[in-house]
């Protein structure tokens, strides 16, 4: 039984399956695509999946690895120890062997290296390279040979791999398809003759219906399409570029398209222009590009233009660590830009939430005529998960309020209204002409750069929208574990799954723990936070950053000594790291000792 299985409650044997596979090797040699094929094969076989990948910042060369956790139940984290390591070279072996638990399996390319003696784990040396070169004549098919080995050894249905290879290579012609099918067979045949010494067996998974296999970036792109976004402008940046690439491929099927602009300022400017012209539009970037966009966010706020801006966060500051994950842009998302500049900041929590979250982001942008910044991060954007086919009725599609009839007589684009939202005319609408104005302006959009009273009134109008958004923020806050716990955990963004798993672990050990996870971070869901915090003895705030950015924002609203748990190494949390902190804090509280912040 694996380390991951122990944490899972059991119903039936298939539902109880929970394995972590990790593939490691030289970047550019197909490690990622091997991992992706294994992922899709496991998903199609009926398992839930949760992947994690790290890849080098270099284009070719450097170490890359791809991890797939497959289980019979919904997965909330990438897991703890590795059950199966597939090492294409010695570096992969050396980097990852410490993560393979005792009793775990190591499959290695016997042509590449020989691992030292190790009685704790089960080793299968397979001459992947020579099998590929000698039997197929193409060295790179060693990846497919390795998949054949996995299929046979761990009873992952062969047909699934065959189907996948056909889909993947049909475009390259039948010869290529056949070579890959042969390579798969070579792997299968090779291990048929050996003695299976490990207990890892999957077979068909418990889920009989098919689900989507999506990365966070793909899921949010699909969500944007679902809510009516047909225009995207962007500039390439890791780890957000695949959103642009995805939409460039998919939007034309629905009459939309992508423009690649000269920089991120232009990207958001183009989005604002399209929004002004009456079309829902979005852009996506990462930290460095988001920094550039801040001036345009200010413009969107004062001109009251709907826009969705996605920031797939990576490690900063400056160029930072482009392929690694961090939750370091919350301050910038909430406060970036000059002046009093209210915008809405949301954070996506899971691959499935990326779909519905982006739909809500568009709805809120349209409803309140404000820019909505949506925070994702490298770990969420690039991990894949099984997602049930989205239910489009779950989130309605909302459109902006436009003027009609009497409202077009002496039309005032920025008319003061009780809910602070003014009907927005669309170019082409007779009588609706106005200037979308970056200067402080009056109700008609006329410049009012010297009207002091009007500035206060207009600022209040823009901030006034927060009242209604805050109500939505309260609705979009989720809680786990005990509703009135002694020890609370507050997280945001992609940490939702790991926190949920850690809380579950702590509850099973008898601790009084509950977690709260808001989806809208600015404005904050004060009612829900207040209710949750009532009666807690301590609140832990895990964040993948150094300074505790959300904790800092909450300290502004609450006189509460939040206990920070920060991880700032470019990697996401494991459930164990959060569980350990819960245990430590709970024990200290119980013993009447002080509680303090730590870094992982």
């Amino acid at each position, binding site marked *: 039984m694996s380390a991951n299985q122990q944490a899972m409650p059991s119903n039936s044997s298939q539902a109880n399956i929970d394995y972590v596979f990790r593939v490691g090797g030289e970047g550019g040699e197909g490690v990622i695509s091997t991992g992706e094929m294994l992922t899709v094969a496991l998903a199609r076989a009926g398992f839930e999946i949760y992947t994690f990948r790290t890849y080098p910042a270099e284009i070719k060369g450097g170490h890359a690895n791809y991890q797939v956790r497959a289980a019979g139940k919904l997965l909330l984290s990438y897991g703890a120890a590795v059950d199966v390591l597939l090492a294409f070279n010695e570096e992969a072996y050396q980097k990852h062997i410490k993560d393979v638990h005792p009793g775990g399996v190591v499959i290695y390319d016997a042509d590449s290296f020989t691992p030292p003696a190790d009685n704790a784990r089960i080793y299968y040396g397979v001459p992947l390279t020579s099998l590929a070169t000698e039997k197929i004549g193409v060295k790179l098919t060693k990846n497919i040979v390795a998949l054949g080995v996995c299929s046979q050894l761990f009873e992952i249905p062969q047909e699934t791999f065959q189907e996948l290879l056909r889909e993947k290579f049909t475009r390259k012609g039948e010869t290529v398809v056949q070579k890959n099918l042969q390579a798969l067979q070579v792997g299968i045949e090779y291990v048929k003759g050996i003695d299976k010494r490990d207990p890892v067996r999957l077979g068909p998974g418990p889920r009989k219906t*098919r689900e*989507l296999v999506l990365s966070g970036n793909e899921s949010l792109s699909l969500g944007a399409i679902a809510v009516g976004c047909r225009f995207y402008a962007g500039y390439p940046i890791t780890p957000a570029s695949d959103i642009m690439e995805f939409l460039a491929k998919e939007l034309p099927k629905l*009459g939309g398209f992508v423009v690649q602009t000269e920089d991120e300022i232009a990207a958001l400017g183009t989005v604002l*222009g399209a929004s002004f012209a009456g079309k829902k539009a979005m852009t996506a970037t990462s930290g460095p590009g988001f920094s550039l966009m801040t001036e*345009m966010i200010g413009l969107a706020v004062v001109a009251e233009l709907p826009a969705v801006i996605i920031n797939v966060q990576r490690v900063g500051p400056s160029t930072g660590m482009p392929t690694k994950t961090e939750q370091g842009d919350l301050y910038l998302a909430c406060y970036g830009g000059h002046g009093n500049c209210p915008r809405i900041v949301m954070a996506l929590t899971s691959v499935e939430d990326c779909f519905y979250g982006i739909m809500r982001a568009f709805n809120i942008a349209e409803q309140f005529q404000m820019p909505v910044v949506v925070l994702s991060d490298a770990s969420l954007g690039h991990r894949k998960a099984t997602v049930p086919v989205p239910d489009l009725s779950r989130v309605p599609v909302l459109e902006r309020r436009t003027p009609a009839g009497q409202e077009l007589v002496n039309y005032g684009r920025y008319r003061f209204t009780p809910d602070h939202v003014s009907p927005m005319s669309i*170019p082409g609408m007779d009588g609706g002409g106005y200037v979308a104005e970056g200067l402080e302006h009056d109700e008609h959009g*006329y410049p009012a750069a010297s009207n002091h009273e009007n500035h206060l009134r207009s600022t209040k109008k823009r901030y006034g929208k927060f009242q209604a958004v805050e109500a939505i923020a309260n609705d979009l806050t989720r809680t786990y574990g005990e509703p009135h716990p002694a020890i609370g955990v507050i997280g945001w963004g992609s940490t939702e799954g790991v926190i949920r798993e850690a809380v579950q672990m702590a509850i099973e050990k008898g601790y009084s723990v509950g977690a709260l996870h808001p989806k809208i971070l600015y404005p904050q869901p004060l009612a829900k936070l207040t209710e949750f915090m009532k009666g807690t003895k301590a609140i832990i705030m895990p964040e993948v950053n150094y300074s505790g950015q959300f904790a800092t924002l909450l300290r502004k609203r609450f006189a509460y000594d939040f206990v920070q748990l920060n991880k700032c190494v470019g990697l996401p949390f494991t459930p164990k790291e959060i569980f350990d902190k819960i245990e430590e804090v709970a024990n200290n509280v119980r013993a009447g000792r002080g509680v303090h912040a730590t870094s992982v």
Partner: protein
Amino acid sequence: MAQVKEYIGKVKPDWCPGCGDFGVLNALQRALADLDIAPHNVQVVSGIGCSSNLPGFLNAYGFHGLHGRSLPVATGAKLGNHSLTVIATGGDGDGYGIGVGHFVHTCRRNIDMTYIVMDNQIYGLTTGQASPTTEKDVRTKSTPEGTIEIALSPIALALSCGATYVARGFSGENLHLAQLMKGAIEHKGFALVDVFSPCVTYNKHNTYPWFRERVYKLEDERHDPSDFRLAMEKAFEWGARIPIGLFYKVNRPTYEDEEPALRSGIPLAKLPLQRNDLASFMEDFI
């Protein structure tokens, strides 16, 4: 034909008396009236600067955005609804200084829009610093000993970046300017109309009389606007004689022509949301 007064906005221009920009505004209103384009079908996008205040003085849809960023916004406005007429306006600092990157790439894209630059060779709104088109050795508030950099040639830059209609007008030649603007708006593609628009307050060097002594019309000398090399040569003519008029014009498919999604002719803003399509579409990701 529409009347010029239909294009007059409710806000009175705040330019200094005698400012060249008045002539540009008049010429634009005349061009729009002559072309009979309904005010509600015009989107005028600007940046920041004296001349960028223009959208407020015109009766149309306007967008007064950020310094140097008019062209990205105008690009989005055009792509969002390409059935409407899009005009971007601004000054030399806005377009050739802070916004020059956008200028370069908008030329390349050949979006169907008209870009009117009121070029006064000075930063007027910030009261008199050197701009990218200030001539070498001219003394300004930021260059008390004279500018060190040479002036940029907007015409040459537009030509080399792929603009398909490249013209220069003079605010003191109003009817000629209105003709150039009409041509620019009618042209399918990215059209630049750089306009000598004297700043009577802060540029004591490039004044109305200074220009009147020097400008001549390319049409009067039978310039061939289809000749790219000749246009380039004329772009650098500066000194005793300075050309105005249409330097270059070529027909190249616009960005909208080349974008398959827009070929149906339905503007994006009018595209109905077809939710049924999505269900089958998602099957690709199973």
